[in-house]
């Protein structure tokens, strides 16, 4: 996702406040159509990298299902621990009714949920993948489980009604993930929850970043850190109101830049005494976004308004910022 595009979006929102403080000398400014306004909260995620990544992944999974042992290995490597953690955090119990949006051709999540005793509806919009998923499930589950606990449905996540389920799982590469999640939360029954996988680190380049804060309201949520660039988020339903204003509200907590997650942004409130920081756009009142964290105690890569800057970790630790939601 282009950072800069969203940058302007966020900047536009905060502009009136900043401008109000210092308008006095700017009365004579020529009136031009400055920057874009009227931005939607969520855009369809259409980055070419995302398209390529999800196409490659679904093809890999599809082809993989024809290779003996691949399903087993793939599931154990990438999904087993993650799903176990999610099931525990979401608190689903045997007999619960669960929806999984975007099961793909290798339905590791539905199979694990069935094994945990849930009744699962697995949704997939690609018919070819769905056909394959049925076959894979047939190898991995017994007849009783297949007929009683698992149902594959052809359909798009955007139109789905999430009411009547105890929990809803959303895959990483459903598109548009933000829109689907928002809709699911909106329709969710009281006490139910939605579990989705959020990209972290390098994966955040391929996938959109959706955080509970961004979805609006005071959502009760929990992060489960995984590996290989995925992170699970569980959100419980409660008085959910989609709130666009949340993006420009200044009530975020204050944290150190070094404690940010990759992709997280905020407004600087305090910088340490280092003359190089200010000219590079690291000044109080400025927006910054954490782009990468180097290994071996190396610097953090921070995006400021016009440039990318690598900042030593200790310095970054002394930079305080008020967290803003991701976009």
């Amino acid at each position: 996702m282009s950072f800069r595009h969203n940058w302007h979006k966020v900047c536009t929102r905060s502009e009136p406040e900043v401008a109000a403080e210092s308008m006095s000398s700017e009365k004579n400014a020529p009136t031009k159509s400055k920057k874009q306004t009227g931005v939607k909260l969520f855009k369809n995620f259409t980055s070419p990298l995302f398209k390529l990544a999800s196409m490659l992944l679904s093809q890999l999974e599809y082809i993989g299902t024809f290779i003996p042992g691949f399903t087993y290995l793939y599931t154990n490597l990438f999904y087993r621990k993650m799903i176990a953690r999610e099931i525990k955090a979401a608190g689903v119990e045997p007999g619960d009714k669960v929806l999984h949006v975007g099961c793909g051709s290798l339905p590791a999540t539905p199979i694990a949920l069935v094994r945990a005793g849930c009744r699962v509806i697995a949704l997939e919009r690609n018919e070819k993948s769905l056909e394959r998923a049925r076959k894979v499930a047939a190898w991995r589950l017994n007849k009783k489980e297949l007929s009683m606990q698992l149902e594959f449905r052809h359909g798009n996540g955007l139109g789905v009604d999430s009411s009547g389920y105890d929990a809803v799982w959303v895959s990483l590469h459903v598109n548009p993930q933000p829109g689907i999640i928002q809709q699911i939360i909106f329709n969710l029954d009281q006490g139910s929850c939605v579990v989705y996988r959020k990209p972290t680190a390098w994966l955040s380049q391929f996938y959109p970043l959706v955080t509970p804060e961004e979805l609006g309201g005071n959502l009760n949520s929990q992060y489960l850190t995984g590996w290989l660039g995925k992170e699970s988020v569980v959100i419980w339903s409660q008085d959910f109101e989609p709130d666009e204003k949340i993006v420009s509200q200044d009530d975020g907590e204050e944290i150190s830049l070094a404690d940010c997650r990759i992709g997280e942004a905020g407004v600087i409130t305090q910088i340490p005494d280092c003359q190089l920081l200010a000219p590079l756009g690291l000044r109080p009142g400025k927006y910054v976004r954490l782009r990468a964290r180097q290994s071996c105690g190396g610097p953090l890569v921070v995006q400021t308004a016009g440039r990318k800057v690598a900042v030593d970790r200790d310095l970054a630790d002394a930079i305080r910022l008020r967290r803003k939601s991701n976009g």
Partner: protein
Amino acid sequence: MADCHQSRQEVEELESSILLIGPPNVGKSVIFNYFTGLDVGMANYPGTTVEFSVGEIDIGGEESARSYQLIDVPGTYTLEATNAAEQVAVDMLTQRPAAAVCVLDAQNMESSLYLLLQLLEHEIPTVVAVNRTDLLANEGMAVDVDYLSSKLGLPVVETVAVEQRGLETVRTELSRLVEEQAQQRPHFSSEKISDTNSHSRWEKAENLARSAYYRVGEDQTEAKESWDQLLVSPATGFPIALLVLTLIFGLVVGLGLGLRRFLLSPLFEHFVIPLIELGVTSIIPPGLWRSILIGEYGFLVKGLEWPFALVMPYVLSFYLGLTMLEDSGYMPRLAVLLDGILNKIGLSGGNIIPLLLGYGCAIPGILAARAMANRKERLTIAVMISLAVPCIAQTGAFISLLAEASIWLIPLVFLFSFAVLVLAGIILDLLISGDWTPTVLEIPELLLPRPGVIAKKIWLHFKHFLVDGAVPMVIGVGLAALLYETGAMEIMAYYMRPLVDGWLGLPEEAATPLLLGIMRRELTVLPLLDMELSFLQLFVGSVVGLFYVPCIAVIATLAKEYGIRVAAAILLLTTTTAFVGGGLILRAGWLLAAMF
């Protein structure tokens, strides 16, 4: 700072000079080269210019044309001087130059304007050039120069220096400004700039920048940003860095080898040298002079073959690779990736740039270290480059020497040099005391290198090689021929026998490269070519050559930068390391041979 004061005297009278000022990596050197017709270094990373350059600029109308000194000041984010290069800029301002061209970065107007405001406090007549507007246009944005001009009361020109757009307008505005000044008119008409504290200056810069930007179209940088994210995230960045460096290394060695084997060697072997030999034998009778010209160290044979057939191909291929790394903006990304690891040996990520330049020639590497924030890092880099970073000429010589015997010797020698570099870093970290400066490094935008610029830079490096590389090499070979043919070499070799033969296990003639090597680094290696050395001797010879005296020009540079004592210490260190290391390796080799 001694060198700053020294070099300031070189600029005769600042009253008739025009300063070119701006943040780092904004394109000042490109503008400088355009106006002066000179060729100072340009690259896509901050801190390319570490020393100011002076050239002539002609301004004024046709009847009143006058030439001024144009001074390319090292890039500075602010006038609060945080390193040696920036201090130069600040020093120049207090000398009351005739005018200044302040180059602003269109993508970073806020900080550029801050610098401009600081500059204006010095009350120097200024023309403002807003450069890199093409890159801003890719983001769908533009800068309203008329607005800035009316607000600041200064001429403001939109430029794209790499395409020479807008530069003539800068010249016109500059002429007008200088003329006006001659007629004692005030140079800035509107509001008086009297801000003196940084807070109000920032506020002013922010307001100006915010009002000056306007949107003209769609942002087209999305895809590039996605790729960039992969380059700077460690999980993907390291594999990519390995791939990039391998590709560049492959390009340098492969292209160099190809040029040599298929083009230059056949050309020299079958055409140039036979022709010279024919010419010489027909003119000069057999004897001392003929031998000097075409004998063992034939001045016209080896003196041409070595620099042009053996070394030149690698010079060309190396600078092709380096230029692509420089101009794409990849080097700072590499610096950021490696910063954590380099910190462990007392260096910082930014040091990778002088080190990489050092693989071309030690001198630009040592000079580039000036952009480093503290003396400790600068000195460490200088020692490391002098000690164990072979210049491209020497690398070319290594490849010629070693590839014949065993292809594995080349990576072996290079791995050994890496190991010594790491060791040297650790030891120097303990020895040299100094403040630790936290890394704050700007990562410039990724750009596709322009073929024209690449060609021009390779041509410049080639010219530089002809003058500063080939000529000393030819003289060195001539000297060798003279010593060899007159028998002086034999006498010297006799006296150096205990060292060369006894300690290093090399044949007696190997005294020659040790003597010549003082002049040029690759001359410690090239004479070994025809000596039919064993595997172990080749390795010992290479290691001695690698660590041995960096060439005369490097020692002179070191003396200029760090003083004669440091230069002498480095000379002693490298020579001792070469002999001690070479001798120990020989004995280790014997031990290994005895064991298996």
